[in-house]
């Protein structure tokens, strides 16, 4: 039992830190919190679990103000230009801590609550954009975490698949477990952690904000340069002198060079190779195969499978055929033999260069997570005695809305419905209360006289200097 404040050499080398925030003087192992759950050991440093975070500028230079001994030293122009974020600034507590939300929150029909630990609940949602040509699942399909439905597949966008996760129906409309699992998933996604999603009738995908998706265990590194037809348009002139035909395999639109406007324009000779699927316009084919995890987001693993027939009246022995996917990840070079059967051959260097260029032109595939929520009446009432005036003031652009210092897109129409990219927000911006509601920081920034005019609690305003003075700070970059 060491009540001595100094750590032993063995403790230090194990990364243990000593917390001196209270008389308990916890020794805390890496990755764990002290007895109070307010302080933790992160990378062998003592951190405040939920710091009040200040940004020096709206352009997101982040400065986290957490517990420590050094007072504000004026390094950032005495706080001028700083944004005090809502992170760590809970509404009713003297110190910004993981409030005893459950025991302090009022529940219908009881006077008090006994609890093992703070539960996890939430009431909001996220929209997830997954850059991939892989088939993730049919539109409207349930998206599951640990078997519970947490959302659904929504529209496919250009090179991306959208998911809608969370929302009131999954959080409170289903079973208790569904609500808890949904909230866990939302909180993790908003705090930029990875979550594995399973789509009914589709793929399993690991999603993490600003990271490439992992589809069925395979890291998806790039998104396609365009659909098959677009790829033909972009690269036709570079292929022209080296090939007789190019087929760009794509789940959306497969392109065939010699039939395509891009090839016709270059006076390419018809090659007589007909692909499967439904012809849209010349050289553009829908549904050449089923969606899947093979070439260009189809289920094709052998590209020759999509060739329906080769017309002997048009094609000729020795015809040079390139087949390539829209990401350049898959490619094959074929030459027609005497029976007009495509035979694999070594790809010429100039053709390979263009295939590589397709790959090079693909953007890195990312998952992006937008937090979406509505600022309700009571939240607005916390800002002003006359909530609708806050809404109007936001509409009139007199009041700027930010989440963790990141400007939010405010959806037109009634109320304050907003969206924000969680990847731009400071670390661990999100928390929860069992109301159920996700706790997200939100800041309304406006001129003091405008604030008074909309019925704000102007008398309760404190100066930035006072905020800095009354909160011991540690600079955290």
């Amino acid at each position, binding site marked *: *039992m060491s009540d001595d404040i100094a750590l032993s050499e063995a403790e230090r080398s194990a990364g243990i830190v000593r917390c001196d925030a209270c008389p308990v003087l916890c020794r805390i192992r890496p990755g*764990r919190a002290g007895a109070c759950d307010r302080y933790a050991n992160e990378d062998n440093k003592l951190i405040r679990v939920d710091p009040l975070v200040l940004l020096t500028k709206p352009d997101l230079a982040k400065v986290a103000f957490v*517990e420590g001994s050094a007072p504000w030293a004026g390094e950032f122009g005495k706080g001028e230009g700083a944004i005090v974020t809502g992170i760590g600034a809970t509404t009713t507590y003297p110190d910004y801590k993981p409030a005893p939300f459950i*025991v302090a929150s009022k529940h219908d029909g009881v*006077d008090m*609550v*006994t609890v*093992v630990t703070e539960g996890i609940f939430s009431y909001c949602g996220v929209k997830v954009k997954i850059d991939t040509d892989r088939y993730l699942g049919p539109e409207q399909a349930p998206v599951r975490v640990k078997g519970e439905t947490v959302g659904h597949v929504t529209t496919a966008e250009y090179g991306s698949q959208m998911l809608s996760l969370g929302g009131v129906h999954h959080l409170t409309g289903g079973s208790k477990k569904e609500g808890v699992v949904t909230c866990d998933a939302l909180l993790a996604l908003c705090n930029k952690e990875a979550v594995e999603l399973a789509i009914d009738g589709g793929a399993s995908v690991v999603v993490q904000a600003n990271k490439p998706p992992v589809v069925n265990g395979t890291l998806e590194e790039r998104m396609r340069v365009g659909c098959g037809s677009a790829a033909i348009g972009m690269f036709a002139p570079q292929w022209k002198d080296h090939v007789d035909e190019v087929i760009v395999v794509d789940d959306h639109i497969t392109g065939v060079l010699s039939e395509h406007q891009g090839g016709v324009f270059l006076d390419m000779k018809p090659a007589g190779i007909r692909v499967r699927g439904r012809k849209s316009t010349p050289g553009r084919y829908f549904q050449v195969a089923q969606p899947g995890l093979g070439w260009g987001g189809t289920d094709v693993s052998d590209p020759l499978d999509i060739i329906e027939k080769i017309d002997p009246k048009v094609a000729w022995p020795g015809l040079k055929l390139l087949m390539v996917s829209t990401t350049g990840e898959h490619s094959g070079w074929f030459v027609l033999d005497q029976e007009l059967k495509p035979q694999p051959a070594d790809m010429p260097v100039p053709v390979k260069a263009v295939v590589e260029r397709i790959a090079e032109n693909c953007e890195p595939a990312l998952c992006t997570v937008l937090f979406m929520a509505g600022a309700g009446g009571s939240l607005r009432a916390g800002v002003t005695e006359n909530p609708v005036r806050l809404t109007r003031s936001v509409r009139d652009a007199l009041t700027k809305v930010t989440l963790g210092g990141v400007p939010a897109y405010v959806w037109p129409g009634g109320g304050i419905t907003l969206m924000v990219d969680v990847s731009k927000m400071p670390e661990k911006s999100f928390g929860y209360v069992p109301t159920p509601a996700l706790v997200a920081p939100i800041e309304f920034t406006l001129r003091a006289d405008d604030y008074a005019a909309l019925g704000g609690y102007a008398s309760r305003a404190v100066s930035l200097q006072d905020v800095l003075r009354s909160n011991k700070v540690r600079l955290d970059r």
Partner: protein
Amino acid sequence: MIGPQRAVLPDGRLHLQHGPIDLIIEAFGGANEIERAYAQATARFADVLPTLVNELSKLRAPIGEAYPLLQGAVARRMSRAVWPHRAVYITPMAAVAGSVADEMLQAMVEGRTLDKAYVNNGGDIAIHLSPGHSLRAGIFVQALDGTASLTHDSPVRGVATSGRGGRSFSLGIADSATVLAENAAAADAAATLIANAVNIDHPAIERRPARELDPDSDLRDLPVTVAMGALPASAIEEALDRGAAEARRLRLCGLIDSAAISLAGQWRLVAVTPLVAARAG
């Protein structure tokens, strides 16, 4: 170092916090009496944590043959609460939260005329009831899963919940073990033991020595539950049965009034006081 913090919540309840101690306090009665009660609580709170810390190494030591000699008022409540359980490995820390609640409640109500009052220390609650008054406690596991009605004529003056996932380590796998007893310290110690008894050997349960997680843990190298996968229904039944047997034993010894145990959505009630499950699901 940060000293004790005091705040009044918007609805008038008192919030006191110092280090790991987090109290939500409410008194009912005349406004003047409430105000004086809160002032007494605040005054008493100042040295609760420092006094505990003075004897921390003794409080973290297992109870052996001899009754531990402790000086602080809270520390003595702790040893009194765990002494009856000395046949198994237990340290006074098993009753720390409840003992703080009891001590604070006593300091608050002394000399005051109140209808009722409670001190809620992170879910471990000490209550005061005058004749004709009652309080309802909610049991919160994943949501408000059950309630307990506490009336003046019942002997229950303490409620505590223990389990996996709490702030303290658990040797068992219970999601929750809620105990009603004559005071919060007794409830706290018994809840710890009942939650530990809800247990079974299964590969889906991951355990690690407590001190690998917290070098200061009073549980030393005992294996504490750190993660649990899905268990077969028969294992859940078996574990709950063991917890319920322990609860019945403690009730026969006169140490608890009632207990409600949960694991994976299943419940066992060992109840004298009416305990009501809120809803299934």
